[in-house]
């Protein structure tokens, strides 16, 4: 994991001092509401429906056990005992008081954490594959590059007042797990024909009101040009992105309006000016950043030891959890485990202070003291010994963290929705819960197989509904909450945006609607065909017919 040096610590201390002073001036009436707004947003503080909400950055999802314990402390001392993992690998607290935020920031700084640029019209937390560094299909670990981008984007003086928020994701694996193509900038590690590893860079992707898949801007740039390439894109966007209408201010609208080719020309012109400037990354810097993400001290172990295979044979609960939640690791004898935070009756992504402390203890005991947050709002233990998996699984039971539903229908992505968020048109958490209750039979979930269902409470699409195989969007219809259902979205390599099935539904109709969609899939699928593949093959109509069929 990245370790701060004196420079990083100094900048963080400077920032807290600055924000404390700004908060004091605001509370003393010397700074107006509108002038304080972007300052607090760039320190992670929203003012929500019920209370302020503080979003803490988890750079590219990495958390140490010490950080988990600090988050548990913050949840219990400054909040109501829980936090919420977000779809951008961050964690947010829903109940801090505005005047206490500088104190929370001081606590976070003790463990090299902060809330910098987690909201506002600036470059947000860079995200990546939650399996970075351990995935079997990875070209190279993305985290050193994420850290380079984190530093370049943190307190960038030119890009703190962009037209709108700006999100960057990096992917290093064959199978894209980072929803890379729906980010303002999406970066793929890639190898050119000479075997050199560099970056393929897309821009102009995004969800929200106008969902768009990113367009290729740089087919291949060598590593040393990473920052100059990014800075060129940001500069063109800062100058030319629309500022007259916040709904048309994202980079995707600029790229669409002037065309990819014209946008690319402008970026290239800018890039020619700066590509060989001091932004040129040095080998030393790449090596330095890589040095923080070296392999831990793996022992040499064999795959599938008998201590594991015996348990798998004899314990059906353990074995179904293993099938769903445990994935192959690049090192033999190790496994990647995902803890699914989608317990029925609990808001997806919610985590209690007790669970955070327990995760810390398990991380120390089983996974070299580190975990990762995934954009699906789950927690990953990247380095668990296969011969310890059973003990690890037992260790999850006490805090109800052993749900075996990873990747299944009930492992939904869901935003906080109208229960918490001031922007939402409709509630989303009760929708998630009603679907989980409808589909409470585990064998049925296994039979339905791999599928993702994403729920957003409004057009801003924090729940990524556009890229859900099934997407649900809360809409406001004359003051009443309704839900629009879409099918066919995907955030994987063949990224696609879901299509709306038809007229929207009342809240109580949703479980039955999902039931009908699933039954259409089951009757049409071929052998092991996944939901998304059946949809691609047969299209919308069979689903539509089933959902809107009149009762006899």
């Amino acid at each position, binding site marked *: 994991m990245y370790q701060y040096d004196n*420079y990083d610590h100094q900048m963080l201390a400077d920032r807290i001092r600055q924000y404390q002073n700004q908060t004091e001036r605001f509370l003393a009436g010397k700074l107006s509401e509108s002038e304080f707004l972007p300052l607090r947003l760039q320190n992670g503080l929203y003012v929500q429906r019920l209370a302020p909400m503080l979003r803490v950055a988890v750079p590219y999802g990495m958390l140490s056990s010490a950080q988990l314990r600090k988050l548990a402390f913050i949840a219990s001392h400054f909040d109501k005992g829980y936090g919420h993992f977000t779809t951008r690998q961050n964690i947010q607290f829903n109940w801090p008081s505005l005047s206490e935020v500088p104190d929370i920031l001081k606590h976070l700084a003790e463990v090299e954490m902060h809330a910098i640029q987690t909201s506002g019209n600036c470059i947000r937390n860079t995200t990546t594959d939650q399996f970075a560094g351990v995935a079997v299909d990875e070209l190279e670990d993305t985290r050193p590059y994420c850290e380079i981008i984190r530093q370049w984007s943190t307190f960038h*003086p030119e890009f703190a007042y962009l037209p709108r928020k700006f999100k960057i994701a990096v992917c290093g694996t064959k199978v894209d797990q980072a929803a890379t193509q729906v980010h303002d900038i999406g970066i793929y590690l890639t190898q050119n024909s000479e075997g050199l590893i560099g970056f393929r860079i897309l821009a102009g992707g995004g969800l929200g009101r106008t969902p768009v898949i990113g367009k290729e801007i740089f087919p291949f740039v060598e590593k040393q040009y990473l920052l100059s390439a990014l800075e060129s894109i940001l*500069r063109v966007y800062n*100058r030319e992105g629309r500022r007259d209408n916040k709904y048309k201010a994202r980079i995707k609208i600029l790229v669409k309006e002037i065309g990819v080719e014209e946008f690319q020309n402008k970026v290239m012109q800018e890039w020619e000016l700066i590509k060989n400037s001091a932004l040129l990354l*040095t080998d030393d810097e790449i090596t330095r950043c890589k040095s923080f993400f070296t392999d831990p001290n793996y022992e040499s172990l064999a795959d599938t030891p008998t201590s594991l295979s015996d348990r798998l044979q004899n314990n059906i609960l353990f074995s179904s959890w293993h099938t769903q939640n445990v994935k192959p690791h690049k090192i033999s004898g190790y496994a990647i485990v995902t803890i699914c935070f989608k317990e029925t009756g609990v808001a997806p992504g919610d985590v209690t202070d007790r669970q955070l402390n327990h995760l810390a203890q398990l991380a120390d005991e089983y996974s070299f003291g580190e975990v990762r947050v995934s954009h699906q709002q789950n927690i990953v233990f990247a380095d668990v010994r296969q011969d310890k998996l059973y003990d690890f699984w037992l260790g999850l039971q006490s805090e109800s963290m052993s749900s075996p539903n990873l990747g299944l229908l009930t492992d939904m992505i869901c935003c906080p929705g109208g229960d918490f968020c001031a922007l939402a048109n409709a509630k989303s958490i009760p929708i998630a819960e009603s679907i989980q209750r409808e589909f409470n039979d585990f064998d049925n979930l296994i039979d339905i197989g791999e599928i993702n269902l994403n729920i957003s409470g409004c057009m801003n699409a924090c729940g990524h509904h556009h890229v859900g195989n099934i997407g649900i969007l809360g809409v406001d219809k004359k003051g009443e909450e309704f839900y629009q259902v879409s099918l066919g979205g995907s955030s994987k390599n063949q990224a696609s945006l879901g299509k709306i099935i038809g007229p929207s539904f009342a809240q109580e109709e949703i479980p039955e609607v999902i039931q009908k969609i699933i039954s259409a899939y089951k009757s049409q699928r071929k052998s092991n065909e996944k939901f998304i593949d059946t949809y691609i093959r047969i299209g919308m109509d069979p689903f539509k017919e089933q959902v809107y069929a009149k009762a006899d």
Partner: protein
Amino acid sequence: MPKLIKDGEAVSDYWTVLKEATGPEVLKAVPGKNFLVPLSFWKNYQEELNDYNGNIAIWLDSHDRVSDLDDSIHDFPLIALNFPAFSDGRSYSNARELRTTRNYLGEIRAIGDVLRDQLYYMQQCGFNAFAVRYDQDVDDCLTAFGDFTTGYQATVAEPTPLFRRR
């Protein structure tokens, strides 16, 4: 007297900013002044400006483009960049472009909605003068340049990024 901070000190301001709608008749009416004129004014009234017996410099609005300026910019003792709202970040890129791409060495002045909490970033991008909004506390503004000890990026104020200094 309007408030101006230049090179880290509070100083008197001898320049008057002309608004976009102003016509050339103002030059005859008020001789011997120091006028900051909008880019369009400078382009449209070259003759009148040449005849003027005071000093002339230009200001760019946030949507104006530095790339539209020719090399006569180097004759100006200062160029002002407007912030129509403090949240409009375009003038940061314009300041940087003037310094880095165009090697402009004169004063670059922030005008408009110029507030204490943006001064540090402005300075990093190449501004060295700040006509802060009327209600800002100048003494407090002077402390803003110390908000951060250092930064990660290659900026106008610190052209060597931290990764080359570590």
